[in-house]
């Protein structure tokens, strides 16, 4: 009896998972199908899930009209750097904020929330002026810097949650074993944070990859523009869009993030095992 119940529960789980995935992933399918349809089919009142006469015309049009490959490379550089720097800077800080009771930690925590609450439209203009003062307009470095600062509050706030979940007793044990402060951090705490770290890296990467407004106002040279800016070039006045090429370009813009996810998701597995056993 126990076994049938187990099997039933399993089936239920798979069923629920499939429902979730259909809901979450069907637009990717829809996007692909849109990219493969002809303009005539897109203007039809009788939409179908699968293109009737699939063609790659939209893809070639998208590559012809806009510098997609170049912009993808720019996006990759910017998002990669932003993610790496954000996390490198955020992990130690989040740790310090949790483990030390200090007015600085408190002020920082308050700041994190306020900075996420204030309308970003009002921050953009002064930020623009600061960057101009540093001659960081029209430079990818400037954009990376903006993204790092933009991601930091989130990264700090989330990582604090994960640090709090790490049993402090582990650190104490390590200290008793004679590990120094930084040794303890590197060999005991960080491994335990791996899932949280991975989540944060993913987050920072995707935010930077998708971010649009700063990239729009900061980058002027066509050869520096990122993918999300290029995408809007397929949209005309009054929301009219060149659907086929837009969908094709959007597929190209979506895939790298997904690939990145597919590679990284294995790392979402707990570090407790590896960390604790070695430690």
């Amino acid at each position, binding site marked *: 009896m126990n076994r049938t119940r187990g099997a039933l529960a399993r089936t239920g789980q798979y069923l629920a998972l499939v429902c979730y995935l259909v809901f979450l992933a069907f637009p990717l399918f829809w996007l692909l199908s849109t990219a493969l349809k002809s303009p005539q089919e897109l203007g039809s*009142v009788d939409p179908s899930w699968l293109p009737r006469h699939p063609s790659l015309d939209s893809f070639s049009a998208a590559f012809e009209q806009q510098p997609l490959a170049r912009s993808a490379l720019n996006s990759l550089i910017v998002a990669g750097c932003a993610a790496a720097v954000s996390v490198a800077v955020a992990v130690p800080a989040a740790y310090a904020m949790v483990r030390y009771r200090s007015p600085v930690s408190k002020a920082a925590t308050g700041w994190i929330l306020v900075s996420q609450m204030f309308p970003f439209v009002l921050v953009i203009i002064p930020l623009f002026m*600061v960057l101009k003062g540093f001659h960081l307009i029209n430079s990818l470095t400037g954009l990376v810097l903006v993204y790092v600062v933009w991601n930091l509050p989130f990264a700090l706030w989330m990582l604090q949650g994960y640090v709090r979940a790490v049993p402090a007793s582990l650190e104490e044990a390590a200290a008793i074993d004679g590990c120094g402060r930084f040794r303890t951090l590197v060999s005991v705490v960080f491994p335990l944070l791996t899932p949280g770290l991975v989540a944060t890296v993913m987050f920072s990467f995707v935010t930077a990859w998708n971010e649009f407004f700063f990239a729009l106002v900061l980058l002027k040279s066509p050869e520096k523009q990122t993918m999300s800016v290029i995408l809007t070039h397929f949209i*005309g006045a009054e929301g009219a869009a060149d659907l086929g090429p837009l969908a094709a370009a959007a597929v190209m813009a979506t895939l790298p993030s997904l690939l990145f996810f597919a590679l990284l998701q294995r790392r979402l597995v707990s570090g407790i095992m590896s960390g604790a056993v070695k430690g």
Partner: protein
Amino acid sequence: MRRRDFLTTTAAAAAATGATTLLGGCGSGSGGDSGPLDYLSLAWQKESIEVNKALVAEWNKANPRSAQVRYVQGSWDNVHDQLLTSFEGGAAPDVIHDEANDLTDFAHGGYLADLRGLLPASLKKQIPDASWDMASFAGGVYGVPFLQEPRVLIANRELLEKSGARTPTAQHPWSWAEFEDVARELTRGRTYGVAWSMKEPVNQSVNLALTTGGAVFHREGGKNVIRFDRADSHVVELIHRQVHKDRTAARSALGMAGSDTLPGFFAGRYAIVPLNFSFRQQVEQQAPDGFEWVTLPMPAGSGAPGGGQLQGVSPQTLSISQDTKRKKTAMAFIAFMTRPRHMARLAEGDWLVPTGRDALREPALNTAEHGWSTGLRIASDLRASPVLGVRGYPEWKDKVATPALQEYYGGSISLSALRDKLVEDGNRILARYQR
């Protein structure tokens, strides 16, 4: 004004960049005299982007290094935000492609150069006064209007011929009453006579008021005021009547943007769709094989000036940033882009009507195909949209007019309630900008 500009800028900069002054305050504006001029183009259609880039390349080949131009691609979707940020931050493009409607606040804010002293005589003569009106406000000319887009009726030829209705021409358009009759004839079974796409109802409603001698925005004692009298509301009432009484206009289309009505149009669900002139490109591209369509002029009002065929437009413009040091070069580039041949090529690429007298006569555009000739014939009926140059118009549009018109067209408020909102709430907003 100069000195005040300077003071404000300094004050703002000082307040804004406390952090900058602390750290790297030495940095001043970039750009300046060296490097290419940035030309922000909003060309969207593939052909138009190609023409723009080709013209820029041609210019760069013929001119010395100091006058080189860099093509920067922008998008209609976000041009206002992009410009506002870069103007405020002091790093705007030198030559700016935009729409007259969007220039009002930038011109008042002192960000755009007044072109009056810069315009070459030939260019001034090329473009009729009615078009120059469209870019003139605050006592100056702030852009060269070069492309314009009237509204037209795009009709399903088969359904139109079957109904037996007279096919209107630019010389002899339908009257509004005739249009209502035709819509009734066309409404059969699942087919509606017309689909008014009203996701953005305000511009169309105001611009079409000109056909019946209205304007909605009037000048009284040197101030802008809103009125919504019979002549102003004639077309608005007619649309309401078609949706709710005659049921010749599809109610569901009211929430759609222009391009959303096309699938229904191709499927014969809507016989006529009033759309902007450039939508012909999408119709041409998406129409199923064998689908035939015609471009017709908008209906005309009776007893109104211009034979009731006038309509308001907000043209596309080329402007120069006030901060540019090389205004003469920028102007020379604009003059190059708007030479008759070039203007006609740009118009063709974006499926729009050029403003220039000679450009309108270019053989490439004078073809009956795809309704080109209809658009060119009505070019002389186009006037400055009454909303151009009115400060506070965007706020009135978003906060008052869009919701009120949506509610009225949707049938949830009456005409008098609509009038109250548009006029009373509206004038209060305009008053704030005209203190």
